[in-house]
């Protein structure tokens, strides 16, 4: 699969792969699915791979990632890996229902969907395709734009497995669901994970989506998630990314919000070779609200790219974006926010904010906070800053006896805390708080366990305990 750079031959390869699949893996597809796959694949052939000259890709170079060879699984890896061998849970107070993916495949992909005691129907997308064709037809491929984005087209054409979650109307789920996507390939791996989450009317869910590597093998995950949030529903969506330095993650999520629905996204990127989070939110009903937060702490040659597109398609909606990043070593970051307010979307409130701190002269930060506004009765604002730690504050702290290192750490932590404090689940917030502190001290590379199941012993830090919380 080296042929990525030469567009043509990669496409040729994928064409023959697609043909193979049509006769095998895809042969049980419903009519809807197979026509969708076909259309997407045609789009994939028409579209070009982005280069540094493509708008929105000017600072994210996929070249090196795409020039590697990757293997692509057409069914679940036959080698039986017990997920429990790869990680174990040892975090107190954070009880979740877990759905685990290993190398993009649901660990129980062959099992039927499971109805949890609390009423959620969840399991592998592969199973849902067979068991719930009506839900698939209603939502699958309806929100993601496979017509303009080559990776979304490719994902839609080859989507085989991932997580499916259906929260029926009026169901309020207290216990968070945790989607853990473990990358543990034995060879360089490309995958097209596909998730679908359907939130029924007035339902409520906390979802924690973890992407982790457990070894140092290269991977290219072209992941795509669609989330439908029906009237009055609310989802808090947490993303935790802790991948190895050879990983490439294109993590695209489309949120479709109906009237009075609420969305909170909080994505924390701690490690990863190249991470591109593409988040698209459409506010498609009155009084829908979206809060989108992100924190990225990058070092070495890591690169993180947050693309956030918020489309106000209805009046009286509110959106709020806040992304913060600290870049060390030769790390680089991109924030590209795009708020689009339709002509009819009067009384829109939209805010966009991106703050970056550079710790070295080789680190880079790029910000493009865009506003595109066609309605007049709006309150929209955006701000972006790039800078260093406040020297006045540093001196103030040092004049009270803090060492320069501690003072810097404290200020960086305070900078990050604004995002961490938005986490609504106490146990999760405390856990991430710890992880961020470790990350800032340079103690967290990729754990050999999942983020939330980190088995490393806790370390004492002087400022660890915030007594104000006692």
């Amino acid at each position, binding site marked *: 699969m080296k042929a990525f750079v030469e567009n043509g031959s990669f496409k040729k390869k994928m064409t023959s792969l697609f043909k193979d699949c049509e006769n095998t893996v895809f042969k049980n597809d419903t009519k809807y699915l197979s026509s969708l796959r076909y259309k997407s694949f045609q789009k994939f052939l028409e579209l070009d791979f982005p280069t540094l000259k493509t*708008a929105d890709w000017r*600072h994210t170079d996929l070249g090196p990632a795409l020039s590697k060879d990757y293997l692509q699984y057409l069914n679940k890896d036959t080698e039986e890996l017990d997920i429990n061998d790869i990680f174990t849970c040892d975090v107190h107070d954070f009880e979740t229902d877990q759905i685990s993916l290993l190398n993009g495949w649901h660990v129980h992909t062959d099992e039927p969907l499971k109805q949890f005691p609390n009423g959620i129907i969840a399991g592998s997308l592969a199973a849902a395709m067979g068991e719930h064709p009506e839900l698939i037809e209603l939502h699958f491929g309806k929100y993601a734009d496979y017509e303009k984005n080559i990776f979304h087209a490719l994902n839609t054409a080859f989507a085989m497995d991932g997580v499916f979650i259906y929260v029926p109307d009026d169901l309020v789920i207290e216990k968070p669901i945790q989607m853990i996507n473990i990358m543990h390939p034995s060879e360089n791996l490309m995958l097209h994970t596909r998730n679908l989450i359907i939130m029924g009317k007035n339902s409520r869910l906390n979802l924690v989506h973890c992407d982790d590597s457990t070894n140092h093998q290269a991977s290219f995950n072209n992941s795509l998630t669609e989330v439908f949030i029906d009237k009055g529903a609310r989802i808090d969506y947490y993303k935790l990314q802790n991948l190895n330095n050879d990983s490439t993650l294109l993590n695209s999520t489309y949120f479709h919000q109906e009237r009075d629905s609420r969305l909170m996204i909080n994505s924390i990127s701690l490690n990863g070779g190249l991470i591109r989070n593409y988040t698209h939110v459409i506010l498609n009903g009155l009084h829908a609200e979206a809060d989108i937060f992100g924190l990225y702490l990058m070092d070495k040659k890591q690169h993180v790219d947050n693309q956030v597109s918020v489309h106000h398609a209805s009046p009286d909606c509110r959106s709020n974006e806040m992304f913060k990043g600290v870049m060390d070593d030769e790390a680089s970051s991109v924030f590209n926010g795009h708020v689009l307010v339709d*002509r009819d979307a*009067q009384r829109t409130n939209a805010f966009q904010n991106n703050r*970056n701190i*550079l*710790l*070295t*002269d*080789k*680190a*880079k*930060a*790029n*910000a*493009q*906070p*865009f*506003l*595109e*506004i*066609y*309605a*007049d*009765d*709006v*309150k*929209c*604002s*955006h*701000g*972006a*800053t*790039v*800078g*260093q730690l406040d020297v006045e504050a540093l001196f103030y702290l040092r004049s009270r006896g803090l060492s320069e290192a501690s003072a810097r750490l404290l200020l960086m932590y305070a900078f990050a805390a604004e995002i961490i404090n938005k986490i609504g689940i106490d146990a999760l917030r405390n856990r991430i708080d710890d992880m961020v502190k470790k990350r800032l001290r340079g103690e967290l590379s990729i754990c050999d366990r999942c983020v939330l199941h980190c088995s490393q012993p806790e370390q004492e830090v002087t400022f660890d305990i915030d007594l104000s919380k006692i």
Partner: protein
Amino acid sequence: MVKDKNNIIDEVTQGEYKYGFVTDIEMEMAPKGLSEDIIRFISAKKKEPEWLLDFRLKAYRHWLTMKQPGWAHLNIPPIDFQDIIYYAAPKKQQELSSLDEVDPDLLETFNKLGISLEEQKRLSGVAVDAVMDSISVKTTFQDTLEKHGIIFCSFSEAVQNHPELVRKYIGSTVPYTDNYFAALNSAVFSDGSFCYIPKGVRSPMELSTYFRINAANTGQFERTLIIADEGGYVSYMEGCTAPMRDENQLHAAVVEIVTMDDAEVKYSTVQNWYPGDKDGKGGIFNFVTKRGICRGVNAKISWTQVETGSAITWKYPSCILLGDNSVGEFYSVAVTNNYQQADTGSKMIHIGKNTKSTIISKGISAGHSNNSYRGLVKMTTRAENARNFSQCDSLLLGDKCGAHTFPYIECENKSAIVEHEATTSKISEDQLFYCLQRGIDMESAIGLIVNGYAKEVLKQLPMEFAVEAQKLLSISLEGSVG
């Protein structure tokens, strides 16, 4: 103050585009179309040296390989570059030595525009270079300026009299390869202004160029070059108008500014090209490349623009801050009404240490127009302690227009600080009501409020321009309510 207000209200109530007349002057024109022959024709007409013809031809050949840029938030109808006249000049009888010898019709034109060359000469002490259909008509005050060693003349004269300066600096800030319209300009530019401020000289007066498109089917491709040598200072103003015509006319200008150690150039523009009628018919396509470079330490370039005219504006006055401690500024008010479209902003490229830039942009959209701010702030690795502050506000009048903000921030230095802020909102109901309650009608109230909103930028303009600009703002928004 009261009188000013009344004037504005008067202007608003009368306000049509008042510069839309056509002057009947005998013209000398090239045939329509663009080719190497036309370029040779232009160059020959102007008795240009070989190197300049070479420059034009290289630019033309490069232009042929380029595509019209499509990234701006603009809907540009296809332009037939073969349907444009690239050279139109008022027929010259002989060399003019005094204003008495200028074609009386031409003088009348400039009088109508409110830039009576005579008046200006006597009263205001502003040196004016007037460019009509690409040809510099008359530069006033040359004698006075010469005493200070300042060169201020038409570009063509500069080519004849100061070829070494022109050759050294032309294309040094905006190379012909820079972009599609800069390449086109480099190939076919006909005239413009040239200004050189020698070491240690502060220009004793404001310099000004007035651009006028008169003839039909012509494009205007002027080229301006301003050089301020060590410690030099000049404030330079540019104004422009065009007749009302149903077809679109192309204006693709290039302005280059070079400042050396401790030198400063302040460049102000009131752009009032014909914007088209209320249905969006006609109007000028204003595709302009303006860029300055601060080559020396402590050099400064300041752009101020009031953009009210043109059917389509595509313009990003920029600063390359190469010298340590150099300063770049961009102040802009852009008004769009009816079916006007504007995509304008600035680029600040910080290379030197302790360089500083400020961007203040106020966009006002009304009618069915679209108004975009687009700006780049780049801090390169060397730009230690560089600072940028950008504030880009948009005001929407009415629910059929669009206001957009597209900032690009690229930072590669840890000690550099970039701050960008922007807001988009509609005109405050409370402020409007307050005005109405005091007996001011809606349109005047909007005029007042908008002027207040734009004040931060307007105050950067030289006096005589500021008053003009204030009136323009109100007129441009005429008919935007109701």
